[in-house]
């Protein structure tokens, strides 16, 4: 079911946390709300499920205006960061709780709980208590409980934050599989860009209560609207260089970087260049001279920081095995087609 937030405004006391936010999540789509801590992701999520009241704007599920409905009447499934399982009930009762509230008969409840347990792969855990489950299993139970009464929308608030690295990887694909299998409209709140990019159809990147950019993951990565978006996505992160446009080149100190044909007519004067680590290295010829100031071995790849004579730092990611030493001087090139240009204020050119 489609979800539509229209000029949604939220204030706490006198502090405006969200100002006139518009967001449409299409039916069956999984949308990521991504952004730094305190930008208003949880506030938006809790407004959608009815825990917070809106101070302005409207919320529609499909054609239904739910702006003023209490949580109980919204039919939204929520998975909380700490799962919020009911500790005194076993898993079966936990999942059945939303159905018991609806006063369904026992046969139906047993059937539905069984089905949903199959879906999230926990049929053998039904008789245990939440305290006897691992984090990943609790997560599955929380998902099952949120999905069992077939909500219009599924909301996930940092669902993977409490899991260790390996489980996080597993649950990432599990949540996506379950979302695709049920075809439910979902919103995932996270401050982890990898999570957002790998799990969701589209990403809404937020900052200070506003959506800065809303697009598909690869587009957001390759085509960011400003330095904030460019810097938020990508690990290791993009590096920025101050450059001047002269003689048909980006001049950085004594060196020059070619300007791509697409950028040539648009840039002049001072610019900020954004260069992702995978587009800087010896495979792109020569161009910028600098000293290696940091080496990080990641197994398959090595990460180098190169400090230029003017003090700016470029990151480069290289296949492992080059064994360059700290302090070595290198002269590496840049894939100029992939260099991103921004105004000094940070807007994309």
């Amino acid at each position, binding site marked *: 079911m489609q979800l539509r937030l229209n000029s949604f405004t939220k204030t706490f006391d006198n502090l405006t946390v969200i100002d006139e936010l518009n967001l449409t999540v299409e039916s069956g789509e999984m949308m990521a709300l991504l952004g730094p801590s305190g930008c208003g992701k949880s506030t938006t999520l809790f407004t959608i499920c009815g825990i917070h009241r809106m101070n302005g704007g409207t919320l529609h599920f499909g054609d239904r205006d739910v702006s003023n409905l209490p949580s*109980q009447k919204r039919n939204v499934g929520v998975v909380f960061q700490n799962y919020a399982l009911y500790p*005194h009930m076993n898993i079966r009762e936990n999942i059945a709780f*939303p159905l018991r509230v609806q006063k369904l008969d026992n046969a139906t409840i047993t059937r539905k709980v069984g089905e949903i347990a199959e879906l999230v792969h926990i049929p053998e855990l039904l008789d245990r208590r939440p305290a006897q489950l691992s984090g990943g299993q609790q997560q599955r139970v929380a998902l099952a409980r949120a999905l069992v009464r077939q909500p219009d929308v599924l909301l996930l608030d940092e669902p993977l934050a409490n899991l260790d690295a390996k489980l996080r990887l597993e649950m990432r694909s599990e949540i996506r599989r379950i979302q695709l299998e049920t075809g439910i409209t979902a919103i995932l709140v996270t401050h982890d860009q990898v999570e957002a990019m790998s799990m969701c159809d589209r990403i809404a990147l937020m900052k200070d209560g506003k959506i800065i950019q809303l697009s598909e993951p690869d587009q957001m990565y390759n085509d960011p609207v400003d330095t904030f978006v460019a810097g938020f996505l990508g690990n290791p992160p993009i590096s920025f260089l101050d450059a001047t446009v002269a003689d048909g080149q980006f001049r950085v100190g004594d060196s020059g970087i070619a300007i791509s044909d697409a950028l040539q007519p648009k840039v002049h004067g001072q610019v900020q260049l954004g260069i992702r680590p995978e587009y800087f290295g010896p495979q792109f010829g020569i161009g910028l001279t600098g000293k290696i100031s940091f080496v990080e071995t990641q197994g398959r790849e090595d990460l180098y920081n190169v400090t230029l004579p003017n003090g700016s730092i470029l990151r480069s990611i290289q296949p492992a095995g080059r064994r360059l030493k700290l302090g070595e001087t290198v002269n590496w090139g840049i894939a100029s087609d992939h260099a991103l240009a921004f105004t000094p204020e940070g807007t994309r050119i």
Partner: protein
Amino acid sequence: MTSNFRSLPVIALLTILSLPLVVMYAFTLVDSITDAEPGSLIPSEFTFHHWRFLWDDTTGRGSVWIATINTFIFAGSTAAIVCATSLTSAYALSRLNFPARRFFLAGVIILHAFPTITLIIAIFLILQFLGLFDTLIGVIMVKAALELPFGIWVMKGFYDTVPWEIEMAGVQDGASRFMVWRKLVLPQVQPGLSALLIFSFLSGWSEFILPLVLAPGSDAQVLSTYLAYFLLDDSLEVDFNLFKSVGLFYALPVILIYLAFQKKLMNIYGGGSKG
């Protein structure tokens, strides 16, 4: 084995320190069923004479059984009122955002720390004005009111340990606020509730000052005032062994309750439910 050896000095020390108490309790028990020559500690004959208060009216203040029933009513109603009120008001203080919430919280703490005895004259006047002086209902109401701050504070502590998300999850699952409280929150504060129930019952059972001042007559007397009467009334011939027997009779339920519920009582100091 090693850990036992290491705790041996501690056990020895505790034994020595508590020995005087144990000896006194032992003598209370022995004295209540024996007689001794004047000036001697060693009992010389076995007798049930000191327990005669169970079937005779030895004091002229009525039967001990009436006092016992009164004490049960007094302690039981106090506990019931304290629990019912604490259960609901602590929830409001812990979860709901209502006007003057901070004021109520501060008030509860101050009242908790307030010495009862300073209020006794005011309470006396109020009860007399209401016509509740020298009635069980009057003392029950006063006792419950004075116990409430403690009860509210303890229950608030238990509510505070229930994660907020659990309630929100319940609401999202479609349950009303009352159902969430009843089905999801209450089971988690239940250990605190049992502890408070026992605790306030015992507190009512051992209360002495309030019944003494506010219900001095023999109709509404409880065991503590019944017992004190043996000491306070000069006209009675002093029989210390009788006094000890009544004391034992009075303490018996307390000992039984402690034995039966010591685990639950520990909860009140631990705060919160686990698992």
